[in-house]
C-alpha cells in the first residue's frame, strides 16, 4: 500500500473505528447515559466528513485518483455521494435519540450498525471494482437488515426485517451471479476493463447471449436495491415495520447508495450495452411510476404511503438514465438524478422526522389518522410537513421542483416527449396523496390527546436542518446546481444558466 491509499480510505476507516468504539463504550455506559452513543456517532460522522474534506482539498483540480490497487476511484462523483450519505446519517442520528428512548431500545449497536452501513455505502460509491462494490453492498445491506428489526419486541419490526432479509439476500445472490458472469466474460473485475472488453469484442462474438444474461441478472440486483417495480415488494413492508428513524435513513442514504452503485455499473461497466438496457429501463420506469402512484392512493399508513412515494420518485429518476441517444447519455439526465438525490435526501428525511416526532407514550404516530388535527397540536411541525409534502410533489419554488425539472428537461432535449409528459402527468397525480396528508393535518379533527406535542431538542435540529435545506435549495438553487456540475465535471449548461440567473 502507498500512502495515498490510507488517505483515500480515511473516511471509511474513521467510520469503522468509531463504529467499533461505540460498541466498547456502550458496555461502560449506565442505562441513563445511552445518549452518549449518539454523540459518539455524531463525532464519527463529523470526523469522517473532515476526512472527505481533506481528500477534496488534496485532490484540488484533478478529476480523481485511484486507490487500493485500482479497486477504488475517489473522484468528485464519489465525494459528492460521500457528503450526501454523511448528511443523511447525521440527520437520522438526530432523529433517533428521543425515538429510541421512547421505544426502550436504546442500545449502542444501533449507532454502530448505522456507521458500518455508511462505510459500506462509501465503498459502493467509490468502488471501481465489482468485488469492492459487492462487499460494500453487503456490508450496507446486512447492517440495515438488523436495523430494520431493531425493535425486537415489536412483531411488525421482526416481520419487516425477515422480509427485507429474504428478498435482499435473494437479490444479492442474483446480482453476484451477474457479476460472476461479467468477470468470466472479460477476465477482470475492474469496471473500466469490463467496459473495454465488452465494447471491443464480447458484444460482437458468439458470447453475446451470455453478456445479455449477465446484464439481466446484474440489473435485477441493482433495481432491487433501489426498489423499482417489479422488484419493489420489500420496500413498503420494510419501511412500515422499521423504526421510523431507520425508515428515514433507508429511504435516503441506502437508496442514494443504491443509485451510486447503479450509476457506476450501468454508466461505466455496462455502458456498451446501453442499447439493450435502455428499453428495459423504459419499461421499469413506466411500471414504477404507474404502480407506485396508484398504490399510494389507497394507503392508510403514512410510512407506507411515503414508501410508495419514494418508489414513484425512483421511477422519475430512472427517466434521467433513459434520456440521451442510443449510445450516448444525456449529461442533464445524470445531473438531474444527482440533484434529485440531494433534494430528496432532505425533503424525505424531513417528512420522516415529523412522523418520528409524533411517536410518544401511547401514540405510535404512523397511521394517517394520527396526523388528524396536527395543526392545532403542533403548528410548526404541521407547516413543515406541508412544505415537505409540496416539495415531494415538486411544486416550485421548493427543492423537489428542481430534481424533476432537470430530468424532464433532459428528456425533452433528447426528444422523449411521451415519457416526459407521462412523468409530468404522474407528478400532478402524486399531488393528490401528498395533499391527503396535508388535508388530515389541517382539516382533520383531533382524536387522540388534545395536548400540545413535546418536541426534543435534537428533533428540532433535525427538522430545522431539513426544512432549511428544502427551502434554500428551492429558492437559491444556483449553488447546488454548480455543486452537481462540479461533481460531474461539466460546464454550466447555457439553458440552465438562463433559468437560475
Amino acid at each position, binding site marked *: 500500500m502507498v500512502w495515498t491509499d490510507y488517505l483515500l480510505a480515511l473516511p471509511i476507516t474513521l467510520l469503522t473505528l468509531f463504529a467499533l468504539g461505540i460498541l466498547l463504550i456502550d458496555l461502560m455506559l449506565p442505562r441513563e447515559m445511552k445518549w452518549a452513543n449518539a454523540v459518539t456517532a455524531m463525532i464519527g460522522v463529523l470526523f469522517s466528513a473532515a476526512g472527505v474534506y481533506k481528500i477534496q482539498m488534496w485532490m484540488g483540480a484533478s478529476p480523481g485518483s485511484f486507490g487500493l490497487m485500482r479497486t477504488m476511484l475517489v473522484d468528485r462523483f464519489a465525494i459528492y455521494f460521500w457528503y450526501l450519505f454523511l448528511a443523511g446519517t447525521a440527520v437520522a442520528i438526530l432523529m433517533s435519540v428521543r425515538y429510541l428512548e421512547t421505544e426502550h431500545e436504546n442500545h449502542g449497536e444501533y449507532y454502530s450498525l448505522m456507521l458500518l452501513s455508511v462505510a459500506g455505502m462509501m465503498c459502493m460509491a467509490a468502488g471501481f471494482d465489482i468485488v469492492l462494490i459487492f462487499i460494500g453492498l453487503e456490508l450496507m445491506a446486512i447492517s440495515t437488515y438488523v436495523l430494520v428489526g431493531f425493535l425486537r419486541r415489536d412483531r411488525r419490526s421482526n*416481520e419487516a426485517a425477515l*422480509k427485507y432479509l429474504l428478498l435482499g439476500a435473494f437479490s444479492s445472490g442474483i446480482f453476484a451471479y451477474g457479476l*460472476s458472469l461479467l*468477470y468470466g466474460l472479460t477476465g477482470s473485475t475492474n469496471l473500466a476493463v469490463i467496459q473495454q472488453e465488452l465494447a471491443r469484442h464480447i458484444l460482437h462474438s458468439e458470447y453475446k447471449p451470455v453478456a445479455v444474461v449477465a446484464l439481466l441478472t446484474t440489473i435485477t440486483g441493482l433495481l432491487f436495491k433501489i426498489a423499482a417495480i417489479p422488484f419493489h415488494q420489500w420496500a413498503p413492508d420494510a419501511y412500515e415495520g422499521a423504526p421510523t428513524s431507520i425508515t428515514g435513513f433507508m429511504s435516503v442514504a441506502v437508496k442514494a447508495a443504491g443509485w451510486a452503485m447503479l450509476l457506476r455499473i450501468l454508466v461505466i461497466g455496462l455502458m456498451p450495452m446501453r442499447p439493450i438496457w435502455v428499453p428495459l429501463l423504459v419499461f421499469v420506469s413506466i411500471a414504477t411510476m404507474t404502480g407506485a402512484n396508484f398504490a399510494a392512493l389507497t394507503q392508510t399508513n403514512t410510512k407506507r404511503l411515503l414508501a410508495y412515494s419514494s418508489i414513484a420518485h425512483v421511477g422519475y429518476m430512472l427517466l434521467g438514465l433513459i434520456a440521451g441517444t442510443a449510445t450516448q447519455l444525456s449529461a442533464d439526465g445524470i445531473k438531474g438524478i444527482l440533484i434529485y438525490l440531494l433534494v430528496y435526501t432532505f425533503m424525505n428525511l424531513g417528512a420522516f422526522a415529523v412522523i418520528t416526532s409524533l411517536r410518544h407514550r401511547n401514540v405510535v404516530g404512523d397511521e394517517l389518522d394520527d396526523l388528524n388535527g396536527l395543526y392545532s397540536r403542533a403548528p410548526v411541525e404541521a407547516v413543515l410537513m406541508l412544505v415537505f409534502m409540496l416539495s415531494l410533489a415538486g411544486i416550485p419554488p421548493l427543492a423537489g421542483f428542481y430534481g424533476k425539472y432537470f430530468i424532464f428537461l433532459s428528456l425533452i432535449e433528447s426528444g422523449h416527449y411521451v415519457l416526459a409528459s407521462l412523468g409530468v402527468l404522474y407528478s400532478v397525480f402524486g399531488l393528490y396523496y401528498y395533499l391527503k396528508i396535508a388535508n388530515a393535518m389541517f382539516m382533520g379533527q383531533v382524536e387522540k390527546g388534545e395536548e400540545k406535542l413535546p418536541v426534543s431538542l435534537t428533533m428540532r435540529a433535525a427538522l430545522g436542518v431539513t426544512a432549511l435545506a428544502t427551502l434554500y435549495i428551492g429558492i437559491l438553487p444556483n449553488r447546488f446546481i454548480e455543486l452537481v456540475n462540479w461533481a460531474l465535471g461539466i460546464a454550466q449548461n447555457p439553458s440552465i444558466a438562463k433559468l437560475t440567473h
Partner: protein
Amino acid sequence: MDAMLHISTLHYLVLGAALFLLGVIGVLTRRNVVIVLMSIELILNAVNLNLVAFSRYWQGIHGPSALHGQVFAIFVITDAAAEAAVGLGILIAFFRNKETVNVDEVNLLKW
C-alpha cells in the same frame, strides 16, 4: 489441452447455472424460511462455482497470478456466512414473537 480446459469450464458453468436455477426455484416456492435461506446459499454457491471455474480458465490465459475470481469467491463465502448468521438471528427473534417459521404466515404487513 486447451480444448479440454475449455470444455471443462463449460461443464462447471452448466452445473453453476443448474444450482442457480434450483436456488431461485427454491426461494420462490418453499414456505419454510430455513429452506428459503438454504436456497439462497445454493445461489451463492453457484456464484462461487462460476467464479472459481472462470478463475481457472483465465489463469490458463493470463498466467497463474490471475486470481481475481478466487479472491472474489472467498469474499462471497464470507458474505454468505454473515448473511446466514444475521438471517437465523432475525428468524429466532421472529419465532419468539410468532411461533412459526413459515413465510405465508408472515402476513402482518400487506398492501
